[in-house]
C-alpha cells in the first residue's frame, strides 16, 4: 500500500483563515483542493510538505456565476465533472467543456478541481516515479538534484505541464483571479505560467487562485483535442485548444491556438492570429496555421510515445481542430 507521508492538515473555512495559515507556514506548506494531483506526488515522496492546507471547505470558491453575455466567473473549487456538465460552458465555451470531460477518469473528475488542474505540478517520465526509482537514476533538477535526464547538460527542468484546462482557458482569453492577505489581482491566464518545469507557476506562495474569469462569449467557436494512448485515465501528451470568432462574412476576427503538454507551460501559436485574422477558415489558412504550430512545438522525450511523433501530431491535431471549427461555423 502506497501511503502518504505525515503532515499537518488544515481545513480553513474561509479565504481569510486560509491567508492566515499561509502567512504562518508558507515555506513548508502546500495548498490542496481535490488532491488528485498532489496526493500521488506525496505518496511517491516528490514532495513532503509539513502542512497541507485544504481549501476544499471554502464555499465561496465553488460556484459558477454569470452567463455567456456577461462572461462567467467560475470558482476554483468547482470540480471538473461539474464544469464539464455545465450547459452554458458546453454551448458557449466548448473548448473548456471538452477539455474538462476528457480529463483522467470519471472518479478523478468528481474530485479534481479547476484550480487544481490549473495549478497542477509538471510531469516527467523521470520525475513521476517513486523515491527509490529517482534515487536510482540520481535526483534531477525538478526535485533535489542538479541533472536533467531529459536533456543532459540542461540548466533548466523540461518537465511537461499537462493541464487540459490551462490551454483551453488561454484559447478563449480567460483571466484568473488570485487572492492573498495582500489583496486580489487578476491576470490573463497565460501569465500564470512560465517555461520552466521546476518553477512553472508565476504565483507567490501565499496566493490562492480563487476564480477563473471567462470573457463574454461573443460568438466564440472553440474546441479541444487531446492526444494520448488511451481514451481514459491518461494525461495528454499533446493538447490543442482552438478558438475563433467570425465576422458576418465568415472572416476571423479572433483566433487563438494554444498547445498543451508539449512544454513546461502552454504554448500559444502566435502566428495563428496573424494568419487567420481577417481571413476565412479555408484549407489553405488551416494548413498554414498547422505548419506554424508544428514549428513552435518542441516536445521533449519525457512523456508517453516519442517526441518526434508528438511533434508531427501537432500539425495533424491543429489542422483537425480548425477543420472542426470551420464545420461548426458552417453549421451555425
Amino acid at each position, binding site marked *: 500500500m*502506497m501511503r502518504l507521508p505525515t503532515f499537518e492538515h488544515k481545513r480553513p473555512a474561509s479565504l481569510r483563515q486560509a491567508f492566515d495559515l499561509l502567512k504562518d507556514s508558507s515555506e513548508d506548506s502546500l495548498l490542496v483542493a481535490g488532491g488528485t494531483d498532489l*496526493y500521488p506526488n506525496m505518496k511517491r515522496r516528490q514532495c513532503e510538505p509539513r502542512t497541507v492546507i485544504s481549501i476544499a471547505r471554502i464555499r465561496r470558491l465553488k460556484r459558477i456565476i454569470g452567463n455567456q453575455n456577461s462572461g462567467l466567473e467560475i470558482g476554483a473549487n468547482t470540480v471538473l465533472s461539474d464544469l464539464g456538465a455545465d450547459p452554458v460552458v458546453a454551448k458557449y465555451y466548448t473548448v473548456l467543456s471538452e477539455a474538462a470531460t476528457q480529463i483522467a477518469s470519471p472518479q478523478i473528475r*468528481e*474530485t479534481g478541481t479547476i484550480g487544481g488542474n490549473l495549478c497542477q505540478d509538471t510531469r516527467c517520465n523521470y520525475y513521476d516515479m517513486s523515491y527509490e526509482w529517482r534515487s536510482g537514476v540520481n535526483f534531477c533538477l525538478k526535485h533535489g538534484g542538479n541533472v536533467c535526464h531529459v536533456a543532459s547538460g540542461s540548466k533548466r527542468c523540461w518537465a511537461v505541464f499537462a493541464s487540459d484546462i490551462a490551454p483551453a482557458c488561454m484559447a478563449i482569453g480567460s483571466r484568473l483571479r488570485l487572492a492573498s492577505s495582500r489583496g486580489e489581482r487578476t491576470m490573463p491566464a497565460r501569465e500564470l505560467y512560465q517555461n520552466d518545469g521546476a518553477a512553472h507557476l508565476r504565483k507567490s506562495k501565499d496566493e490562492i487562485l480563487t476564480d477563473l474569469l471567462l470573457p463574454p462569449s461573443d460568438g466564440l467557436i472553440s474546441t479541444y483535442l487531446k492526444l494520448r494512448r*488511451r481514451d481514459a485515465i491518461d494525461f495528454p501528451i499533446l493538447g490543442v485548444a482552438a478558438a475563433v470568432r467570425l465576422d458576418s462574412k465568415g472572416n476571423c476576427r479572433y483566433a487563438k491556438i494554444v498547445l498543451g503538454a508539449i512544454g513546461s507551460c502552454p504554448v500559444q501559436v502566435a502566428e495563428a492570429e496573424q494568419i487567420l485574422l481577417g481571413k476565412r477558415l479555408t484549407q489553405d489558412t488551416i494548413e498554414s496555421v498547422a505548419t506554424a504550430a508544428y514549428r513552435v512545438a518542441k516536445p521533449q522525450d519525457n512523456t508517453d510515445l516519442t517526441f518526434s*511523433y508528438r511533434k508531427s*501530431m501537432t500539425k495533424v491535431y491543429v489542422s483537425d481542430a480548425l477543420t472542426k471549427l470551420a464545420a461548426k461555423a458552417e453549421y451555425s
Partner: protein
Amino acid sequence: MRFKINGRTYRTNVRPNQTLLELLREDLGLTGTKHGCELGECGACTVLIGGKPRLSCLTLASEVRSFEIGTVEGLAPDCKLHVLQQAFAETGAVQCGYCTPGMLMSGLALLQTTSNPSEREIREALSGNICRCSGYNKIIEAVRLASLRKESTQHHLQIGESHSGQRSAPWSMDEEREHRMPKEFSVIGRPIPKVGVESKLTGQAKYTDDLSFPNMLYGKILRSTHSHAKIVSISKDRAMSLDGVRAIITAEDLPIKYGIMPTSEDERAFALRKVRYFGEPVAAVAADSPDIAQKALEYIDVKYEPLQSVNSIEEALSKNSASIHEDGECSNNIHKTVSLEFGDVEQGFKEADYTREDTFFYEGSNHVALEEHSAIASYGADGKLTEWSSTQVPHYLQRTLCKVLGLQASKVRVIVPEVGGGFGGKSDIFSHELVAAKLSMLCSQPVKITCTREEVFYLHRGRHPTLMRLKTGFKGDGRISALHLKALLDGGAYGSYGVATTYYVGALQTATYKIPNYKYEGLRVYTNKPPCGPKRGHGTPQPRFAIECQIDKASEDLGIDPVEIRRRNLVNPFSTSVNYLRITSCGLQECIEKVLSASEFQKKRGHLGQGNGIGFAVSSYISGAGLPIFWNNMPHSSAEVRIDRDGKATVYSMATDIGQGSDSVLSFIVAEALGLDVSDVSIVSADTDLTPVDLGSYSSRVTFMAGNAVLEAAKNVRELLFEVASREIGVPQSDLVSREGRIYFRDDPSKGIDWTQAVRKAESQFGALVGTGSYKPPNLAGPYKGSGVGPSPAYSFSACVAEVRCNSSTGHVEVKNVWLAHDLGRSINPLLAEGQIEGSVVMALGEALMEEHTFKDGMHKSPSMLGYKTPTPLEVPEIHPIIVESIDPEGPFGAKEVGQGPLLPVVPAIANAIHDALGIRIDQVPITPNKILTALTDKLKGGTGRVGPNSFPQVEFKEALKVDPPKIFS
C-alpha cells in the same frame, strides 16, 4: 470523528495523512473496497462519496466526514443481491472479483443519474476502472441489464437501504442458449453463475491483503536501486534501533537457493553479494506498523559498487559485456539453449517452391493482475508455519518454503485465499513469500507483506521479449515443406520458468500446422532486468505472431487465399506431429468455418475501404503440461469427494481458483456426476493441509487434470451409493443413473431411490462416504531429450478474425470487432468459457497495440498503472466469442482448456487486419501509432511499408539434435 457509511454511523479517530481507503480497510474492517495501485490509476478503490464515484485512495478520510459514504458492503445489507449485483452474477461479469466492488460503485453511480444509458455512456462511466480478467464486455452487459430491470421494477438504488427486489430465477437463459443446451446434462453446459459469486459481489470475499491477525507485524522489502552492482555493505543498526522494528533480515538469513525449475535454481530470497536488477530484494523489515517498516527501510544503509549493466539480447551476447551470473556454465549470460531438428529441414527447403524469411520482435509485457501480490505468514509455538498467499501454485510454494526454511512438509501449510487474477504472474515463488515466513519465525508473530504496484513490476515473470527469425518453405499449393525458427529470449536476471519458456517458443508450431520438417533453435539470455516467466500463452504467442503474419505474406506472394493456405496446412485430428505431439480431438476446421461466417471475413477482406481492414489467424494450445515440473511418477492432480449425511457433497482439491473459475468448474463436474444441484456441492480448495495435491493453476491444466480427478472421485463415491440403490430397487449398478436428487433405473425412472435415502443407507453400511480420484496424463514424451515440453493430453484450437479502423494521419488503430472461435472440447459452463475468451482477447489487444514492459539503462520505464498501458473500457472492441465443442475422449465430459489459447491468434489477426487496412506490415508488437506512421511514410516513398527488426544477431547455436519423425507421422 463521525462517519456515515452505508447508512451507519461510525466513530473513530483518524490520522491527518490517513486516506479513506486506509480508514475503510484497516480501521473499520470494510475490506470490500480494494486497492490496485493506491495512486488513482486503476479504479479498484472507487466508493461513493455524497453519491459521486470517487477514489478512496486519493481522498483523505478527514475530508469526507460530512458526506454519506457508500461502499460495496452497503449494496446488499439484507443479503439480497442488489439488481446490479444480480446482473453481474447472471452475465458472468465477475471473474477474479477484485475490480468488481469498484466497478459496481461506478456502475451504480451511472444508474442513479442516467436512465437507460447507452453503451457509450456505460463505457465512459466505467472508463476509470481497470479490469484484467473480463475484457469488459460482460460488465458492460451487466450494467445495461441492470438499467433495464431498474426501469421496469423501480428498484431502489440507494446504498444502505433494504431492497425489496425479489431474487428472480437464479439464472436466466436466452432462447438461443436454451436451444444449444445439451439435454443429457443437468449442470454441464448451463450458464450457471460461478461458485462464490455472491461473496465477490458483496465485498465479503477475502483476498490475502484483506486478512489480518492479532499481533500481526508488517513486513517490507528493501530493493536494489541499481540494476547491476556489487553489494559492498549493508548496515542495519540504525534501522534496528527504531522503536517498533522487530527484525531485519538479509541474504545471510535466507541463503538457500531455489527456483521453480529444478534445473535452474538460481535465485535467493535476497541478493547475495551482488544485485542483478533494479528492484531486487536486498533486505527486509518486520515492524509494528507499515509506517515504521517504511521508515526502517530508509534507515538501512546499503553501499553498492556499480557494475556494467546488460540491457538487451545483443548486449548479453556481446563478448565485452559483464557477466551476470559468474558461476557455472552461465558465465556467458546464456541461460538456456535448445536446438532440435525433426525430419530433414535442408531437404524440405530444397523441395519448396517458395521460401521466405522474416524477422519479428515481440515486446515483453506484464500480467498486471489487479490484486498486488501479498503473503501472510504465521509461525506457531508448535513449530508449524501457516502461510496465506496470493499464489497460483500452493504446492510449489509449500515445497520451496520447506527447502529454503529447512522445514518438514508436515510443518508447512499453505492456504490460498481469493486471488485477484494471476495470468501466470503468481505461478512462481517470490521473495516476499519466503521473507514473510522467515520474519514470522524470527518474531513468533504473524507477518504480512503486500507488494506495491511498482514492486509487482519488479517481481515481474511476464512475457519474454523475443526476437525471431522465421524461414518457411512452401510448395506451390501453399503446403509447408519446412520451417526453421530461431528465437532469442530476453530472460531478465534469473531463470524462473525460462527453461520451459525456451522450449515452449519452439514446441507448439506443429500442433496447428502439419510441418513435415521442422527445426527450432532457441536461446535465452540473462539481462539486468526483472526475471521473465510465464504469461498467458507461455512462450507461444510470440512465435504464433511470427508464423501467422508470415503465412499471410506468403499467401499474397503465392496468390492463395489466406484462409485457404491455412486450411491446406491444418493438423488432422488424431494424428502425431513431426515432434511427437499426440493430437487428439481437434475442432479447428469448425472454428475456422464459424468465425468466417460470423465475421463475413471473405466478403469484407479488401473491401472495407481505406483505413479499414480485417485479419485472420489460427492457433492451438495445451490443456495442461504432459509432464510435471518436478519429474516423478505421481499423479498431477488428486481429489476427494465427501458426501455428508444430509446428502450434500464437498469437493477437496488443491486446484487454485485465481478468478478463472476452477472452483466452479470442479463443483459443476461433481454436481453433474452425482446428479446434485450445484447448491448442494461445496468445495474446499487450495489448502495444503486439507486438500490432496494438485500441481497448480498454470499451463491451462485445471479443467482437464483436476477435472478428471474430481470426476473420478465423484464416480468412486457414487459407486457406494449405487451399490446400495442396486440392492434396494433390484437393478444392476451399471443401469443406474443419478440425476436431480435421485438414483434410478435408466429405462424406467419410476424405479428409483431418493438420493438422501441412499446416502443414509450407504453410510450405515460403509461408514464415511469418501471417494478419491487422481489424474496422471498418459506417457506422452517423445523419444528425445527435450521432449518434455509441448506434450499435452489434449490441445485446444482457436480461430480469430479482427476488424480494425486505422487513422492514417495519426497512426491510431481502433479494434472494432473481434470474433473468436475456440475449441474447448466441451463447455462446462458457457459464461465462464466466454469470459475466458473475452479476457484473452483484451489481454492480447493490449499486447498487440500498447503494452510495453521496457527499460532504459536498467530502469523500468513505466512501473505504474498510468505509465504501463492496459486497455480501458474505451479501447475494447465488441467481442464475439464462439464456443466449439469437439468432445475430447480423455477430458472430463470431453472438456479441454479455454484459459490461455484464445489469446494466441488475436495479436497476429490484428496485425494482419492492419495490413488489410493500410497495406503495411508491422512485424513488431506493440504496434504503436509511430510505427504505423513510419511504415506509411516508407510506403509513400516507394518502400515496402514494413516496420520491424531488420537484423538478427549472429548466434552460434549448438548443433541440433536430429530426431527422426515418428513412423505414424501423418
